[in-house]
């Protein structure tokens, strides 16, 4: 801290030259690290520690059965990858024998949950992108009441998800608004595909504004002259959109899609409140996160393995995204410029 308190130095004499500048730089770096250290330590404790702990737990078993005399749990121990193989190969230990899990056990629902999670992510993000671009274009125009429109568009995003879910719950109720207005009789919260689309509709409604705002920010970065030049060259509206707007929008769009995809892959609150993960045979909208939370009540360690698997899945998707689409998140300026130039 003394470094901070020291009075600002007068500009270094020219003679000192390179050596002194180097020393100065090193000193500044040292101070920077010292100042950052508490933050880094706290971050390690509150972020890294739980993750590491959860991974350690996932290699253990809570209990290895019940002592028949006292009825007390016997302490479990290290079980290696068993918790992972149980999920991935849908195996259960019944009476000490490893075998295929019977229907209705959590492991048997793993691939269903993987499908549901990715299905929701792909469909909602696709819809949100299309609607988001559309909304961003409208908001980007100059017209009276643009401020009001921009504020209004943000409302769904500003509402807490729990409230959104309850709101849509009333709309989708068998005798609710939607069925009454359309005069239909769809069980939106318990039918297999109806419940899935109920979630998709509610999620799209809620998060499109977020997408629209990120895209709007990208749109505003495109210089007006580019459009003027295009018009001069006789480019049609469609050509302008696909040849100019979309490529120049790509960096912003990729980041927006990446954010939304990662968010959608860990979707929990909306289906948890709207359908409780039910629908169809009872697991129609059970995302991976819902499965993790259900499993925690049964076995912490098995749930740790499942959350680690979920984490790895999401991580892999993020990695692929950055690799394939060149999302620029790390602040690599040169690469960003290259991407822009290529576009």
């Amino acid at each position, binding site marked *: *801290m003394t470094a901070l308190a020291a009075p600002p130095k007068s500009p270094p004499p020219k003679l000192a030259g390179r050596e002194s500048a180097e020393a100065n730089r090193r000193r500044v770096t040292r101070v920077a690290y010292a100042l950052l250290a*508490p933050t880094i*330590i*706290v971050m390690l*404790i*509150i972020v890294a*520690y*739980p993750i590491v*702990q959860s991974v350690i*737990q996932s290699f*253990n*078993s*809570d*209990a*290895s*059965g*019940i002592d*028949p005399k*006292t*009825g*007390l*749990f*016997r*302490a*479990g121990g290290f079980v290696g990858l068993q918790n992972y193989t*149980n999920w991935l190969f849908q195996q*259960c*230990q*019944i*009476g*000490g024998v490893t075998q295929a*899990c*019977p*229907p*209705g*056990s*959590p*492991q*048997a*629902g793993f691939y269903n949950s993987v499908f549901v999670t990715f299905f929701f992510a792909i469909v909602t993000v696709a819809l949100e992108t299309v609607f988001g671009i559309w909304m961003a274009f409208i908001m980007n125009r100059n017209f009276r009441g643009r401020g009001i429109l921009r504020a209004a568009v943000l409302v769904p995003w500003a509402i807490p998800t729990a409230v959104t879910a309850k709101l849509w719950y009333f709309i989708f109720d*068998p005798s609710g608004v939607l069925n009454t207005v359309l005069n239909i009789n769809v*069980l939106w*919260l*318990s039918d297999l595909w109806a419940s899935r689309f109920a979630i998709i509709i509610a999620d799209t409604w809620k998060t499109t504004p977020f997408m629209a705002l990120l895209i709007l920010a990208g749109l505003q970065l495109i210089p007006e002259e580019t459009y003027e030049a295009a018009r001069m060259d006789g480019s049609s509206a469609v050509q302008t959109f696909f040849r100019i707007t979309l490529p120049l929008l790509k960096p912003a769009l990729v980041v927006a899609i990446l954010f939304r995809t990662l968010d959608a892959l860990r979707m929990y609150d909306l289906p948890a409140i709207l359908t*409780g993960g*039910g629908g*169809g*045979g*009872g*697991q129609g909208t059970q995302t991976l996160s819902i499965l993790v939370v*259900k499993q925690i*009540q*049964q*076995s*912490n360690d*098995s749930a740790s393995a499942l959350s680690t698997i979920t984490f790895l899945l999401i991580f892999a998707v993020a990695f692929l995204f950055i690799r394939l689409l060149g999302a620029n998140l790390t602040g690599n300026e040169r690469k960003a410029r290259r991407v822009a130039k290529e576009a």
Partner: protein
Amino acid sequence: MKKALRVAAVGATLALSGLSLVACSSGSGGGNPAAQSGNDTGPITYVQGKDTSGNIPKLAAMWNADHPKEKVTVKQQSDNADQQLQDLTQHLQQKLSDYDVMSTDVVWTAQLAAKGWLQPLTGNYKLDLSGYLPSVVKSGQYVGTQYAAPSVTDSQLLYYRKDLLGSNPVPTTFAEMMKLCPIAKKAGIDCYAGQFAKYEGLTVNFNEVVTSNGGTVVDDKGKPTLDTPQAEAGLQELVDAFKDGNIPKAAVSYQEQQGLNSFEQGKLMFLNNWPYMVADIANSAQAKDIRSKYGIAGYPGKSAVGGHNLAINAYSKHKKTALDFIKFMESADVQKNRVEKESVAPTLSSLYSDTSFTDQYPYLVPLKKSLDSAVARPITPYYNGVTQAIQNNIFQALQTASTGGSVDVKSVLSATSKAIEAASSGS
């Protein structure tokens, strides 16, 4: 520098609390805190779910007036059962002594006891439970030991439409009830509903049809016993009722509230629900048309047992006071007071035969009938897994039946059995 020190201190505290958490979660069992003498008195904390009636603090004040040196502090948890259990688990896992008396849902007894977290009510802690309803006393037992004492109970009642029933006798079995369904059809309303959405209520309703037919879901050792003609007959009743439309299709999404709404709006002839609905019908605006047309009877068969027991934390430092407080909460006066103020179902048998008392609370009569034959839900330390196994399989079967698909109850029950076994292996 001061700031850095403070940050470091916070960091160290976090690290330590984190480490202690690990230390606790890795070691289950360990030592036997339950083996203490029963002479420790002092202030205690009583913890239970949210008290919407506002009566519990008043009872605590009554106790405190008589026990100035052993005051009780009431801690209320959330109103969500899962969150209540989670809160108890977190405190007990860390071997904290801050909860002395805990209100435990009847299905938690086994899982808390199997971790060694509950003080067995034996030896110095033995309570005389002879005057209490046997089915409730049993719900506080695990492997032959009493771990929790009866406090308030609950069992389901059959709400029916007197006006539609006419001169027909009130059904006492599921089959009798189904025979009356043409009356409902003629009136253009639904016949019967219970709780069939995929949640704990489904386990309750499934347990009821199985035990009413003389079957059991699991045996004393927690092994599934569903591969029996009795269990098949039970599930078949529900499947057929869904197929015939005697239970409406929409009932696969019914929890207590949806069934209550349907009944109060006059769209349902028979409803299986808990006693709290009596008060709701008396006060709710939507119930005004049926208020004078409905009756209550015992569940047609064997109801499941609900309610909460009282247990002592094995790590409590003032167990003697805790035990005395439980005796206070179980006393006839407090139980009467709670019926009056909270509309709960008492566990003391004598209250149900006290006609001057039951005249004031007429619902106690059919309730006693339900409670006399009521059967506990599976008693197993793996309850969460077992109830999930039941819900997943049975819900799917009922959902299929409700959409007109065919259901082979035998294979559904055998899958349920296997899933229960898998859950009871702790995976």
